[in-house]
């Protein structure tokens, strides 16, 4: 390890004690715990029914938990080292973490959409397409490290999400489900902000606290809805 890296780590350790990284860890921890509690809290319902909707709903939160775990990992690494140091010292490690984060993020979004759309998208091909799309997204992010590619990918993802949520809402027989689709839409939009925050860290720095608070609120709301219904 070079002297610069050690100095960097020392400075990083100092910064670790400040509110910034503390907030980051608390934020990730709360969302990971919420997501895992949703996943494990619905296990019995799934074991009894083997219902496809429940299956993909719980899996999406498992992937959200994993994605947030890798997200906080990247954030902590970025806190200790700058980008050049990461590319120099941890080239494979940094790339693998980013790849896994992007893959789990995309799969979490696709699975949650599929949990409400599985009756319409009956073909098993949809699942393979989701995994293929997630692979393409994460590989593209890794190969083309430019802001333009990041924006294009996230914009395409957002368009797909808005279109699917809009279709799901219009095909829903219950008009009372309006609130649910708004919550899902907000969850997806703020999740994309979280992805952009990792890919282009300087871009959303001003709004970071707002994004964190809003994302926390959405996850806590879904968690509350789950425990209210499952007991």
């Amino acid at each position, binding site marked *: 390890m070079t002297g610069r890296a050690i100095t960097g780590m020392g400075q990083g350790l100092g910064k670790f004690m400040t509110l910034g990284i503390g907030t980051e860890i608390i934020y990730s921890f709360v969302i990971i715990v919420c997501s895992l509690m949703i996943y494990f809290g619905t296990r019995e*319902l799934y074991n*009894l*029914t083997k*219902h496809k*909707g*429940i299956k993909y*709903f719980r899996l999406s939160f498992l992937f959200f938990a994993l994605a947030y775990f890798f997200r906080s990992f990247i954030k902590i690494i970025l806190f200790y080292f700058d980008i050049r140091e990461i590319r120099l010292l941890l080239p494979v490690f940094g790339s693998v973490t980013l790849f896994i984060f992007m893959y789990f993020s995309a799969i979490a979004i696709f699975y949650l959409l599929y949990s409400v759309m599985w009756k319409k998208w009956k073909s098993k091909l949809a699942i393979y397409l989701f995994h293929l799309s997630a692979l393409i997204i994460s590989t593209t992010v890794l190969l083309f490290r430019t802001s333009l590619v990041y924006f294009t990918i996230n914009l395409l993802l957002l368009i797909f999400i808005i279109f699917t949520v809009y279709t799901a809402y219009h095909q829903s027989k219950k008009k009372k489900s309006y609130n*649910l689709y708004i919550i899902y839409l907000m969850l997806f939009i703020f999740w994309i902000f979280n992805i952009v925050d990792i890919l282009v860290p300087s871009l959303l720095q001003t709004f970071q606290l707002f994004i964190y608070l809003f994302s926390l609120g959405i996850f806590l709301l879904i968690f509350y809805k789950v425990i209210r219904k499952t*007991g």
Partner: protein
Amino acid sequence: MAKRNKLEIVKDILKIIQDNHSIKPTPLLRRSNISSSRFKEYYSELLEKEFLKETYGKNKKITLTEKGQKYLEKYQTIINFIDEFEL
């Protein structure tokens, strides 16, 4: 009358067994209100999932297992959950 979904048919079959404590296959088929081919499918699946068991005395009888009881207890929770999240 609205078409019953799979979860509801399973609940109805298990409820009939629960109400009778144990029941022979033929009356169960009659009361389930589904075709015999579909009944066979459901019956095999419920046996496989260990929601019900067969007991052999003078006649073959069907009884609920603990897992079957659990399904009935949790049925309303399952439906409310699916309804809440449009699953």
